[in-house]
């Protein structure tokens, strides 16, 4: 019986491969023709119409081409991409954030798109830089949409606790002082809502990796002093205890619940807060990110194993061109990575609504925004660092020792990559 099943499965497999291998004649690789697949990350069903429009524009411009859209769900995307990579089934054009592109670029699975093309003429420098990695030459993706963080403040808690919502903190140090002021007036309220992470070290100008990108070096006295500052703030009750727990769901949840008066969030954040808790309408004011605003980049990469490399490259350029990116930015609060989009007055104009204000502020920020989480620091490392910092902030371990331990373990993880 066992044997019969195995035979049946093999027969099935053979018949299926026979069907699949009919169309493997590889065309002239420089010609823009053939059907390619595009893989996006969690954009349907909301943006299905937009993506179909982009695809229709492309196939109209290049007759004989076709684009199959595969949108992958948000969760488990990195596992999905890694499984595709290890089984040689990467789609031709893939929407990858830089930290996902890094391991694939190192394995030579992505095309260096900077060859014969000066990308910095078309795309903003920060976007292009995001797809350059230490240790590999070239640029491994076209920058697509950009975003950054803004600060959102609870107006009611500000005025109740003697703070002025028109002048919220603009730097991390001001955040500490205003948190103290709030605590003095309202002992049950909290202004601060997160513990430091690697981005705070970058903000403070601390070097994260050595020049060759092979080691972490952020366990300095300056970093320890910053963690100490958070430890003291925690001891005085400026932060709610839940930020140290493993069930911490991010500052935006605490903010929506009304437990804290501050959160960070993208330019789309306000809509989310108000939808989750309609009672927040009119209660939220928005300001620029503290210190240096972060830059979040999404991009599209081209698979090195694509059967139609010219088509794949042409489509990646098409979906990231100024025209298509501007249209996308009009649909949702994200920002085009093309230089010429700066002349689109929509992004910089504050139409008086809170969402419009958020858009204008965020667009202004992008000039100064920098990537604050080095791509070498993957999710597992961030989690490890997070645990060490929680120990230090709680006062269970001296900050310096916690950072030393974190760096030692993260170096091990880095060397295994």
């Amino acid at each position: 019986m066992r044997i019969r099943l195995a035979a049946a499965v093999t027969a099935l497999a053979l018949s299926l491969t026979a069907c699949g291998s009919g169309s493997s004649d590889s065309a002239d690789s420089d010609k823009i023709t053939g059907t390619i697949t595009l893989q996006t990350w969690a954009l349907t069903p909301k943006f299905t119409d937009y993506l179909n429009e982009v695809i229709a524009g492309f196939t109209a411009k290049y007759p004989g081409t076709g684009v199959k859209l595969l949108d992958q769900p948000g969760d488990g995307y990195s596992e999905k991409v890694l499984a595709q990579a290890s089984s040689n089934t990467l789609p031709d054009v893939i929407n990858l954030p830089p930290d996902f592109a890094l391991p694939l670029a190192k394995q030579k699975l992505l095309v260096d798109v900077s060859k014969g093309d000066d990308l910095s003429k078309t795309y903003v420098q920060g976007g292009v830089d995001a797809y350059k990695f230490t240790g590999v030459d070239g640029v491994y993706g076209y920058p697509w949409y950009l975003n950054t963080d803004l600060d959102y403040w609870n107006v009611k808690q500000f005025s109740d606790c003697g703070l002025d919502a028109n002048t919220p903190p603009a730097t991390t140090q001001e955040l500490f002082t205003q948190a103290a002021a709030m605590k003095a007036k309202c002992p049950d309220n909290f202004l601060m809502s997160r513990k430091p992470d690697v981005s705070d070290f970058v903000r403070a100008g601390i070097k994260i990796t050595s020049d060759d990108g092979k080691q972490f070096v952020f366990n300095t006295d300056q970093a320890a002093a910053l963690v100490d500052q958070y430890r003291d703030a925690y001891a005085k009750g400026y932060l709610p205890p839940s930020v140290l727990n493993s069930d911490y769901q991010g500052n935006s949840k605490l903010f929506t619940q009304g437990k804290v008066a501050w959160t960070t969030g993208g330019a789309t954040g306000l809509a989310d807060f108000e939808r989750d808790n309609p009672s927040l309408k009119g209660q939220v004011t928005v300001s620029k990110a503290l210190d240096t605003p972060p830059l979040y980049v999404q991009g599209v990469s081209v698979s090195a194993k694509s059967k139609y490399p010219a088509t794949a490259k042409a489509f990646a350029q098409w979906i990231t061109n100024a025209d298509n990116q501007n249209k996308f930015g009009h649909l949702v609060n994200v920002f085009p990575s093309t230089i010429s989009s700066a002349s689109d007055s929509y992004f910089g104009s504050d139409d008086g609504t809170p969402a419009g204000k958020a858009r204008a502020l965020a667009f202004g920020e992008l000039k100064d925004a920098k990537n604050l989480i080095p791509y070498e620091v993957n999710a597992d490392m961030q989690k490890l660092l997070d645990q060490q910092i929680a120990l230090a902030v709680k006062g269970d371990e001296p900050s310096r020792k916690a950072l030393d331990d974190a760096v030692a373990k993260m170096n091990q993880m880095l060397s295994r990559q």
Partner: protein
Amino acid sequence: MKTLRYFLLAFVLIITVGPFVWQLSTSLKGAGEDIYTQTPSFIPHQPTLNNYAKVADAIPVWRYIGNSLVVAALTVGGNIVFATMAGYAIARLKFRGRSVVLGLFLSTLVLPGEVTIVSQYVTVRDFGLADTLLGVALPGMVAALNVLLMYNAFRALPQEIDEAAIVDGATVPQRLLRVSLPAVRGTLAVVAIFAFIQAWDDFLWPLIVLTSPEQYTLTVGLQYLSGTFTQDQRLIAAGTMIAFIPIAILFSALQRYFFKGVEEGGVKG
């Protein structure tokens, strides 16, 4: 003493059922009321079924349920047939290497599924089953745990009954179908429930095997409710309840057999 017992019972009930109640109440809340409140409030003030309708608008939820049912049926069927046969063979038939086979089954239990997921995917792809529902179901069609459950159930039956059947001239399939199987129906129900839950709840494996959105199972398809820029928690909660309800129904229908089956395997030994 009694109050303490009830207190503990109530406590465990709250921590296990609480999150479900929260999801249920969130899925019924109208657009005008707060989801995240300082003290959780479970009773919707503007109760609505709109969120469920919106889930059906946003994603082809029936199609996903259909796909999930196909995978679940294959997995349940496969486990009932193959785990029974494997369990019976190890428990009742004498053949060389029997203890090795048992040891191998046991040892695969130790490996977490994530470790083998990529090699499993490469295997399924080489069969030509990538992006098919059969490919999703295939690796789960004989679960080692279910083989051990069946093995244990068959082993608990008195050897003498089998011997009597041999004297009467019964062949192996006859002994399995007529003599032993009717005595282990409880364990079969346990196997069916385990297999169904495993197939229905699995997320990572179907996500990796399937690429075309129209083939997605419910757990994967529901992920589309949380998009990149906006997540409506009310819709996500409604989706979660849609995925949860069939399991609740199946379990309550088979509950009687389930507990009988758990006893059957364990006590007599």
